[in-house]
């Protein structure tokens, strides 16, 4: 909780997902924060990365609870990007999820999610 306080994320944005902070969400957030000045965009990117990881896309079959948490991460990311109002990022992040999930369904080795998100941020 104290670590979370230092990054000043509103409670609403981490509601029900607090437990993921130390499990990778915090590290991902800080990594994306180096690429963007907007904390909400960094959090959205981190949510996408952790959501996909939780759901085991391309790696393992997620248990029910992980799937639902992953869904919430992806939905939260969409809502954060809607709050930011950046249409380009909304489309680019959605394309990352489309690519990763369809590659996994096709059995194609998926590129890392973080580089794809970083590339979307850099554009």
């Amino acid at each position, binding site marked *: 909780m104290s670590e979370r306080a230092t990054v000043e994320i509103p409670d609403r944005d981490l509601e029900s997902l607090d437990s993921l902070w130390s499990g990778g969400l915090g590290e991902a957030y800080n990594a994306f924060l180096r690429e963007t000045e907007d904390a909400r965009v960094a959090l959205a990117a981190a949510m996408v990365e952790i959501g996909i990881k939780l759901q085991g896309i391309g790696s393992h079959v997620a248990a*029910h609870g992980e799937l639902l948490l992953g869904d919430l991460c992806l*939905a939260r990311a969409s809502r954060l990007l*809607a709050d930011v109002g950046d249409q380009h990022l909304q489309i680019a992040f959605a394309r990352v999820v489309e690519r990763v999930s369809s590659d996994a369904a096709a059995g194609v080795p998926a590129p890392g999610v973080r580089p794809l998100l970083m590339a979307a941020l850099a554009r």
Partner: protein
Amino acid sequence: MIVSRRLRFDTEQPTQFIDLTSRLQDEIHASGLRAGRLFLQSLHTTLGVVVNENEPLLLADFEAMLDRLAPAGSVYLHDDFERRHGVPADEPANGHAHCRLLLLAPAMTLLVEEGTLVLGRWQSVFAAELDGPRSRELALQLEGDFVPGGRGVLPHHHPGDLVEVELARQLAVDPKPVQLPMRRLVEAGGKRLRPTLVSLTGRLGTGYDPLRTSTLAAAIELIHSATLVHDDYVDESPTRRGRATVAAREGPARAIEVGDYYFAKATRVIAELGSPPVTSTVAQAMEAICRAQIDDVALRGQYPGDRTSYLRVVQGKTAALMSAACVAGAQLAGAGEDVVGSVRRYGELVGIAFQMADDVVDYSAESGKPPGQDIRQRTLSLPLIYATEDREVGPEVRELLAGELSDSEVERVAELVIASGALERVGQEAREMVREAVEELAPVPVDGVRSRLVELAHSAVDRVS
């Protein structure tokens, strides 16, 4: 008997095909015309009427063809104002538009049978704007046999047809490993309540655009379908709409991938519409659905729960997307805040009522589902909650639910729920919610779709499957 009407609308582009099929169908319905003819006549010299397929690329082809045959940049004597007499100060240089109308028709007759326009599967009726943007008017005459007292037969396939085309179009471009499982689900049917709500409320503003509305409607149906794909894995449901679920047929990994792909795709398609309020509305609904799903699973430990927790879950799992469908449609059309607020509450109430009716249907032999499925899957259900609170049958229901549920226990619980009168109580509550939902529409201008919204609300609860 002949009924005369005027159809008014604003166009937004120099050349634009405006799909009028739904509005014409509404006029037929409002007039009560059962069988006869609808005459349609443009009151302008640069506005035509045409029947063709509503497919965006084809419409672009038409526009390109008109431009090739009568290019906007060519020389037209009509545009040489010095050679004409009495030219108004605001006369546009639109010789090309007048020439283009020669290629189209200024009027047409359409047949009506059983209160429905007689159109082929791919046919839509368009106004063809050739010199927009402008305010336009069409004259209509309806002639034939009318239902006494007005209000005709509701069409069977309206306004969803365009949405079905758009759904098929959106799915057709997706990678096969995700497309095929989703197509099986979408093509298996479903009530299409959410896209119908979008199609109706999408007509409530001055910016109504059938193509953009159907794009939004199809995207919202894809979100709903994606939630079903994930839900079926979590609930371990073997079938949906009479077919094996994605998880049962192709495994949970594929179900997760398909759900994620279509969540993302729908999000992108909606973002591409370029309406920040619509994007926000749908994003908030998706978040509410996911939160409620987590809540729902957590509550299974305290099964069957209470009415408060039931309503909280249903508001998120069912009502949020129905309400968002209503709101997003209205927002996309640029409807006023009062209309948006009313359809938001309408959608929420209809969504909750729909779920309550669904709970009741679970006890019906005509539901088409295995009897007592909600009990077996320990799904939150209001009749069951009320039965556990009943002084007479409650203790036995609670005792049965505390143990393993074999077929005989499920059957006994169902008997007790029916005996408790809980089904009637829930049915009454659902109908009361529908009444409130309809009341929400009373003070706002939703003419043209009011009767359909009212009917849809009632049909959400008056059903057996």
